[in-house]
């Protein structure tokens, strides 16, 4: 046997070690996918407190305790774009066929600039921008800005939108 040849045992350990490393990569990738879909687990949150909350918490006493929880995302529940979610910040969300809208509808019943959702004082309001076929909140036609409760359907053409927590 060639003296430079590594022993069988070393090669076996290298082989098993590499396969373990390969599966380790797959598992780490799957974990990243899970983090992405469901957010960090409780244990990870404790280990890594979100830096956004910590400095602000002592200065702002909990003021939203008696208020309903503010929605964090806009979900399309019906229509061609069903399943789409848009994270809500504080900027208005524009909806329509125009390419620079936040939510671009490919719907012949929607206008170019159909409606928008505006955040004001902890509430989201839906406002019709003079659309041809109208915007409906709970089957009521929106004529002036109306507050949108959580989970109430807002219908534009064939698309139905809801605010979710």
């Amino acid at each position, binding site marked *: 046997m060639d003296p430079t040849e*590594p022993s069988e045992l070393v090669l076996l350990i*290298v*082989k098993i070690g590499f396969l373990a490393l390969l599966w380790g990569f797959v598992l780490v*990738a799957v974990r990243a996918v899970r983090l992405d879909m469901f957010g960090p687990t409780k244990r990870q949150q404790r280990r890594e407190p979100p*830096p956004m909350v910590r400095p602000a918490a002592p*200065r702002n006493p909990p003021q939203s305790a008696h208020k309903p929880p503010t929605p964090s995302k806009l979900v399309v529940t019906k229509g061609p774009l069903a399943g789409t979610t*848009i994270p809500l910040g504080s900027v208005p969300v524009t909806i329509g066929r125009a390419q620079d809208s936040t939510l*671009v509808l490919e719907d012949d019943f929607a206008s*170019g*600039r159909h409606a928008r959702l505006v955040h004001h004082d902890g509430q989201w309001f839906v406002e019709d921008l003079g659309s041809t076929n109208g915007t409906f909140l709970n089957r009521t036609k929106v004529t002036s800005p109306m507050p949108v409760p959580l989970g109430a359907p807002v219908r534009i053409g064939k698309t139905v939108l809801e605010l979710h927590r």
Partner: protein
Amino acid sequence: MTRPPLPLPPLRRPRSADLTATFAGLPLPRDSNLPPYRRRELTLLVYAGVLATSALAALTLADVGQLSLGVLTIGLGFFCLWAMAHIAVRRFAPAADPVLLPVVVALNGLGLVMIYRLDLARSEAAKQAGKHIPPSAAQVQLVWTLLAMIVFVLVLALVRDHRKLARYAYTAGLAGIVGLMLPIVPGIGTSINGARLWLRVGPFSFQPSEVSKILILIFFAAYLVNKRDVLTYGSPTLLGLKIPHARTLGPLLVAWLASLGILVVQNDLGSSLLFFGMFLVVLYVATERVSWILSGLGLFVAGAVLAYPLFGHVQVRVDGWLHAFDGDNPSSTSYQLVQGLYGFAAGGISGTGLGQGHPQKVPFANTDFIMASLGEELGLTGVMAILTMYALLVLRGMRAALGAKDAFGKLLATGLSFTLGLQVFVQVGGVMRLIPLTGLTLPFVSYGGSSIVANAAIIALLLRVSDSARRAPEPPSDAPLFDPGAVSESPTQVVKTT
């Protein structure tokens, strides 16, 4: 009511002796409240680099019996190459999916090591036979990988908004079909292994059908988004199937039949199957009609039955698949397939270990049959890991499609990720004798330049769609509001003031 401005929180906790700190000075996401996508991507990327380096180390250990510092240098170089792509993602798509790029890098690293391993075996055999040592395929593939990385960065940098691609729908479709036809032109087209698919420029050969695939998909997606309502609702019914008017369906059929016809003329079974599947899925997703899938499958069966007696190479492939071990097949028509199967069998559950099998016994071991080489040396365990990685790629692509806020982005991302998945299925299924063998490459792993360049562009487009899907809405520009009535009547945007 205005709140006093809070001091801006740090973007991330400072970590001193961390690789992340090295990258901290590089362009950061504009939206400071993004989850740490890029940090996760970097962690995974480092892992992928370690994976590729240890594959090379295991191979070197089995081949020459000792390790050298050179392995580490090569591994570091490979990581630095893809780290540039990571920096580009940081700069151009900060909110994009963190899993896609590292999985691609891991697959690419495994592929490069396996190609290098087959190089070693080939040069060993040539040395023993006293023949001239063949040029290294791994070096060529490394150059192509660099090119693929550059194309990846360019696509991310140039396509800042995927919706703009929809404007070039017809141009893209035409360019795609012209690209498919180029190899037939005498002088620049060459045929390799019986299929006339390659363009030869100097020492490099390029397969334009890989790029045409993306261009034609852009056309399909943009066209279907425009005409979806007509295709879904405004059409007469025939036998329970809605048949749209010829005027609406015309351009689609022309593009589709042209691409299929050209591929069939060029003897490229795999790509025609890929185009067909891509077309069906995009049509199904756009119209939500199962009848399209059913009629498409019917067409496929009819086409297969028609093609079988007409094309000799189809008969050879089907015969090699059904009767792989019968008569004198194992030594002639189904030789590679059977050798590949023996390779898988030799690998067993845990494989022979890198550098310790005989994958060079299969013809085309580094292109069509690279899965058999990997199966022999990494075993079932390794093959499962690789297939899981592909599943992750397709899954994240579909996730980007689900999240996309516009229909074009949805169709594009669905089409791209489905094409990637179908290609892996057709390729691996062929090698494992589940379906007849067709000549396709395994994305990112096989030796082949055009494949890795085109697939890098696909990943860049998926990242682009994913980035736009996850980014919080941007504050509106201070452009004057249009008269809503005027805009709602016009099909496109009238004025663009910046």
